[in-house]
Each structure stands twice: as structure tokens, then as C-alpha cells.
């Protein structure tokens, strides 16, 4: 992490400027932030520390004690050896499946949502607001309610059990929030630009590709981050709408965590947990700045 006070792209912080280094105010601010950070970091620390301990050490100590006898065996086991039924190749078998599911789902859902947002912001037609309202209300419908009817819909259109069926499901459930973000973003783009293009005779798609798309990069970053995280972490849809040879990594995670062989191997569980979460985590840590900037421009104006 860099030490820059603030990123120019984010705009300057506008709070009153601090005067002294160790003023009471500074101590309060940093004290609070450090305390809160500890609370947020604690579980990550517990995960990492536990995953590096052997089982005897876990049984004796507490979760917060640092590992004395560091071992990477749990990591190896979680990645390559943990058994689910007869398959003893750990998380590794699901990794590429997760990639294969995540990439098309992210691409398709974002294309659909961005076009939706664009149409809703700039090309409103009769009933478009009603559909959007339904979409927003749809964000509140629990997934569990929809599982059964969607099984039937997918069966009828012949996509049940294929990756594309799953892509559709992810696009559907990603649509409300993403469409909201894109719509807000496109609404905030100055109307003059749009009008000028219209006067030049640009079409719906022409304006989308030539004007809107290039300007919308920050919000695309936000959408990508949200979708990668959501889809990578999904267990329910991945397991219900696909088959064992395409099960995502989270299914193996569930299997590792829930198949208890005598005692719970917490260290292996934690290693598996970190391994499964590592892709979204890395994405957050490297693109955190872009994420906030995109949100600043997308979610805020509306």
C-alpha cells in the first residue's frame, strides 16, 4: 500500500486540515482507526495463523496464539489432497471450473446490465421505469424462492446442467444492482454529449460504443469487481445448476469443511478457506483504489 495521503483521482478530502501531529484529535482519529482495523484484521489473522499450525498445537492453544511450529502441510492438503468421497485432489479440481464459470458469467452479466443502464438512462421508453422498479424489487427476493421455478425455466429452454444455464442465472441475479449502478452512472454523464451525438445522427449502438463505453470505465471496474466476487463465492447456484465435472471451487470447499474425518481439521479448513477466497481478495487489494473511484462516480450521482 502506498503512503500517499490521498489519491488525486478521488478528490481531496475536505475535512478540516489537521494542525499538529500529536494533537488530541489525531490521537483520537488514529486510535479509533487502528482499533477498528484490528477488529477487521483479527479473523484474517486467525485464518492464516490457524492454517499454519499442526492439529496438536490447535488443540492446546487458543486461536490467537501465533503458530510455533509452522507447517505448510494443511495448505498442501487443502489444495491437492483433501478427500471428498472418492476424489482426493482437494480444491485444485475446482479452480479451473470456477474460472470457466466466472469469466463468461461476468462478461455476459456486465454487458447486459450496462446496456440496460444505458437504455434506462438515455433512451427511456414507455414502461421502462416499471421494468426497472420490478428489477429493484427483484433484488429483495431471496434466491431460495427462485431455485425451483428457475430449474423448470432452464429445463424448458434446454439449458439445464450446462455452463450457459448457470451464466444466465448469474446474469439474472446480478442484474438489479448492476443495472442500478450503470443507470446512475450514465445519468450523470452530461446530457449535452448525448444530445450532440444525436444531432450528428449517431444511433443507439453508435452512441453506446463510441461515447458511453469509453467514459464508463470506472463503473465497469466496479461492476467487474462486484461480479467476480459474487460469482466466485457462489455455492448454491454452482451446485444446483451444474454437474460434478463442472462444480466450482466452493463446492470442494464445502465438501472439505463439511466432511469431518474424526476430528475437524481446522487448519486444513482455514487453508482451504483462504485458498478459495484468494482470487477475490487479490482483486480487492490491487484494485481497491479503482473500486472506490468507480463507486464515487457511479453510485453517488443519481
Amino acid at each position, binding site marked *: 500500500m502506498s503512503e500517499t495521503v490521498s489519491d488525486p483521482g478521488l478528490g481531496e478530502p475536505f475535512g478540516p486540515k489537521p494542525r499538529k501531529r500529536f494533537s488530541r484529535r489525531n490521537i483520537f482519529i488514529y486510535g479509533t482507526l487502528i482499533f477498528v482495523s484490528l477488529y477487521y484484521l483479527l479473523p484474517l489473522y486467525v485464518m492464516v495463523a490457524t492454517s499454519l499450525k499442526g492439529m496438536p498445537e490447535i488443540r492446546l492453544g487458543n486461536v490467537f496464539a501465533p503458530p510455533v511450529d509452522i507447517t505448510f502441510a494443511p495448505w498442501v492438503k487443502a489444495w491437492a489432497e483433501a478427500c471428498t*468421497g472418492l476424489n482426493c485432489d482437494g480444491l485444485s479440481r475446482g479452480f479451473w471450473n470456477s474460472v470457466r464459470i466466472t469469466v463468461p458469467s461476468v462478461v455476459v452479466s456486465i454487458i447486459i446490465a450496462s446496456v440496460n443502464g444505458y437504455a434506462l438512462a438515455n433512451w427511456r421508453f414507455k414502461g421502462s421505469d416499471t421494468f426497472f422498479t420490478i428489477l429493484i424489487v427483484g433484488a429483495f427476493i431471496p434466491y431460495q424462492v427462485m431455485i425451483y421455478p428457475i430449474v423448470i425455466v432452464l429445463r424448458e429452454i434446454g439449458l439445464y446442467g450446462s455452463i450457459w444455464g448457470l451464466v444466465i442465472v448469474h446474469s439474472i441475479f446480478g442484474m438489479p444492482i448492476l443495472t442500478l449502478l450503470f443507470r446512475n452512472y450514465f445519468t450523470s454523464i452530461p446530457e449535452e454529449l448525448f444530445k450532440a451525438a444525436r444531432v450528428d445522427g449517431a444511433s443507439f449502438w453508435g452512441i453506446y460504443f463510441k461515447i458511453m463505453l469509453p467514459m464508463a470505465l470506472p463503473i465497469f471496474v466496479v461492476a467487474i469487481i462486484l461480479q467476480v466476487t459474487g460469482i466466485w463465492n457462489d455455492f448454491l447456484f454452482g451446485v444446483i445448476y451444474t*454437474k460434478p*465435472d463442472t462444480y466450482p471451487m466452493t463446492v470442494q470447499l464445502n*465438501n472439505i469443511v463439511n466432511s*469431518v474425518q*474424526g476430528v475437524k481439521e481446522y487448519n486444513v479448513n482455514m487453508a482451504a478457506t483462504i485458498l478459495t477466497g484468494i482470487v477475490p481478495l487479490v482483486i480487492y487489494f490491487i484494485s481497491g483504489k479503482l473500486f472506490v473511484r468507480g463507486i464515487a462516480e457511479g453510485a453517488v450521482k443519481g
Partner: protein
Amino acid sequence: MRIRTRFAAFAACLALPFTAAQAVELEVTHWWTSGGEAAAVAEFAKAFNATGNKWVDGAIAGSGGTARPIMISRITGGDPMAATQFNHGRQAEELVEAGLMRDLTAEAKAGNWANLVHPKSLLDACTLDGKIYCVPVNIHSWQWIWLSHKAFKDAGIAVPTNWDEFVAAGPALEKAGKIPLAMGQQSWQSSGAFNVLMVSIAGPDIYSRVYKDKDAELAAGPEVAKVFKAADDARRLAAKSKVQDWNQATNMVITGQAGGQIMGDWAQGEFQVANQVAGKDYTCLPGLGVNEVISTGGDAFYFPKLDDAAKTKAQGQLASLMMTKEVQVNFNLKKGSLPVRGDVDLASANDCMKKGLGILAKGNIVADVNQLMSPDSLGQVNDLFVEFFNNPSITKEDAQKQFADIVEDAD
């Protein structure tokens, strides 16, 4: 044990290239993922792969609750697996009625299942309108208490021989820092323990009248009140048991942290994996040492209808295979369950399994709750008992009243 599983899988992979030409891949879904369970499934896979086909394992961990929605969605979604495990009983009833399951009558006739399967009720539960739709693979009975010799030795008292002695030993165990009764906190374990108490303390007759005939008056009466009294004792003894999974609770018995556990005979697989010897390290009491009666639930495999002719043929092979003598013996020894064939000789069975076989031979059996009540009613029973066992503020009288209400409306 786990090394052996891995070896079996490895061996299966090695065997594959030689037969790859006509190998048919069959996806089999099940929820057997604990140590002993996985070792048992490996026996099926090994035998099936030896026929030149390929077993594609679709294990879903987290017991039936996690796995069943996936199985049902897959079957109703029109893209089913080739074979799937269900608890033997009414769970798959509607799928069969809807014509989604394959008829196995031909295989059953060829294999003479009608005469081999013992007790006969197992095959009856697979039969609808005279046709057979599933292969029962094992018999599991719930009515066991597993006692840790180490725990009782540490407490300086003799290992009990029945439920009353066990309850009486409670304070001594607690004094020695032991948890008297280990119990997982999932709902099926709570209601399972209650049903065990019902069969053992009230007797098989009362049990059948409540669960099979749905006699609500009896369920509210004094005989069943005795069962609730025993459940109240069990709740007190298990108050400090804070684990979730059944095998974590079993592990407390294995390591001597807990005195005993009421659990089905699948717990035996865990003792075996831990190299414990029945009679020396632990004792098992069928029927809690009161009423030596066991229920004959178990697992069965169903074969959804498939369009592919080669796969359909392989399904038949797998179904027949599961019933063969050799596979039955190998599978059930690992699983710790009893074979469904009356004619196999389990010479290598351990002490506890022999006790079970003896009771089975004597015919002291009752049907499993899964065969008597719908999953819906059982779900309500589960909810009631998981609440009862974890919330001491519900009195036994109150719980009994709610229980009678559920029985009244049950189907």
C-alpha cells in the same frame, strides 16, 4: 484407512486405461464423505470399475440436507445423474410416481432379490405397484449407545449395561470432568436420539403405534411420557456437549472425553478408523440394553431414467453388482452396517456387528421412521427435538403436547 481409500481410487484409475474402449461413465451422487463412509463407497467404485465401466463420484458433503436439494433439482431439471443415494423410505416416493426413476424389476428377477433380501421390508420400501425401483444396499439401525471404557475407568465406575445405569453414572462422570452424554447439535441427531429412547424404553409396540398408526392419543399418554422423562435425563446429561457433527461427538467417546453417545451403527466405522476394539476400548449396547430391538432403515440407490442406451445398460450392471455377495460384504464391513442379504456370512464382523446380526436373525426388528412418516412430518419432529434438547426452558410436558399435535396431523 484414508490411505486405503486413496489407494482404491488410485487403483481404479490404473485399471481404467485397459478398458477405456467401451467404458461407460456413470455419475453417482451420494453424501458419504466421512472416513468410514468414503472407504465403503470406494468398494462400490472398485467393483464397478472392474466391470470395465467408470464410476464418476459426485459426493456432496454435509449430510442429506445439503445433497438432497441438488439431487432433486437435477432429476426434475431433466439432466439427472446415473445413480443416486437416498435414505431408504419415502424420500423418493414422488419421483418414482412421476415416472422419473428407472424400473429395476428385470434386474431384481435375474438376481433373485425377492428371496435374498432380508428382512423383506427393505425390498417392499423399494416397490411401487409391484415394480422395484431401488437397490437397498445396507441396513442401518439407530438403537445403539456407544460407551467409552476410558471415561468410565477415569471416573472409577463400571461400564453400565443399560440406560438406567448410564443415567445413574452421570454425576460420577461429571465429577471426573467428563461430559456424560455426547450429542451433536443437528436436528436429525436430536430426534434420532428421542426415537431410540422411544423404541428402547416404551417398546417396539408403542413405537409402531405412534409412528405407523399415528395414534395421537397414545403419543399424549403416560407410556410416551416415560420416554419424555428419559429424554429430559438425556438433555441434562448432554447439556455440556457443544459439537455440531455426529462424528465429532463420536470422537469425544473415542477419546474418553464423553461417557457415551446414542447414535446409529454407522458410528462403528469411526471406532474402526480409530483402531478401537469393541469390548476392550468401547462397548455397544443395542436397544440401550433395555429392549434389544433394532430398526431396519438404511440407504438405497435409485437410478433415474436416462436416454442413453449404453448408460442404461451400465445402470443395470451397477444395480446388480451392488447386490452381489462379495460387494455386499466388502461394502458393509467398511460402512459398519449390516448386509441386506440374509445369506452372507460376516465371519470378519466385529463384536457389535455380530450383536446386530443376531438381533436381525431373531427378527426383533421395527421399521425405520423414514419408512413410516413423510419427510414433512419428520421435519417437524426434528424441529421439535432440536429445540427441546437445546433449550432447557421447554418442559417435557410441553414438548409431549407438541409431539402429540405433530403425530395427529402427520402423514
